[in-house]
């Protein structure tokens, strides 16, 4: 499955397009990370715990989007976009969406 956030895949042509596919996950952090983040807020620096957490969630959301595309018989997803939003206190929704197409 080819993924790209460009309109077309360079070097290939889009033969058919099917529609919008998306994947999302909602992840919460646990109290341990909360406390560490609180401490980091004082000194500054990267919140490694959160970076990891959101990275994993984004990967999961992307996998779900790919799964949707595969079920449609597509072999590429173009114009992939990511969105992050807070849907509950202490939790974030990771959203990935794009257009499922068949390229040759």
């Amino acid at each position, binding site marked *: 499955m080819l993924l790209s956030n460009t*309109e077309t895949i360079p070097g290939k042509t889009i033969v058919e397009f099917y529609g919008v596919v998306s994947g*999302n996950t909602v*992840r*919460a952090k*646990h109290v341990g990370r909360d406390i560490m983040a609180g401490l980091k807020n004082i000194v500054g620096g990267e919140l490694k715990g959160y970076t990891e957490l959101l990275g994993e969630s984004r990967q999961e959301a992307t996998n779900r989007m790919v799964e949707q595309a595969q079920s449609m018989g597509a072999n590429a997803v173009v*114009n992939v976009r990511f969105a992050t939003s807070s849907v*509950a206190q202490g939790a974030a*929704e990771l*959203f990935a969406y794009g*257009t499922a197409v068949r390229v040759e």
Partner: protein
Amino acid sequence: MDQDTATWIDGCIGCSGILWPFFLLLVTYFIGNYIERRHLQDILAREAKHRSFPVVTFETVPEGWNVTDVGLVQGSVVISVDYFKRFLAALRGIIGGRIKSYEPLLDRARREATLRMIEDARARGYNGVLNARLETSRLATGRANNKGIAGVELLAFGTGVKLG
């Protein structure tokens, strides 16, 4: 009344004192589940109806499309979160991990917003939507103790095109 009944009544009164929050949870779960399933049926029906309407996230006009008119189209929806889902989310907030209770909610919200965008485009005479985008935002309760959220707003918007 014999001893067994007495002990049984004793137990019931004791248990109900402790267990009433769980009854509340169960009730909200069943009601929420019913509303959710009904909404999902509605969504599936409408999606089947609008299946032939093209929606894409890229800007490039597909070859063979002769665009005569464009316009901004959008659809939005605010879906509320029932007590049961909020409770589960709060517990997850302690332990961490995927908030599985919110997933069907966001799925429905996204599909509803997309459908409304399509319906808006169709009503205005467009034949397709290019450059569709989706935005999610949380609505605050406005109360001092932020026990959760009032709802989730999903916005879907794009460029509607008329094909000549």
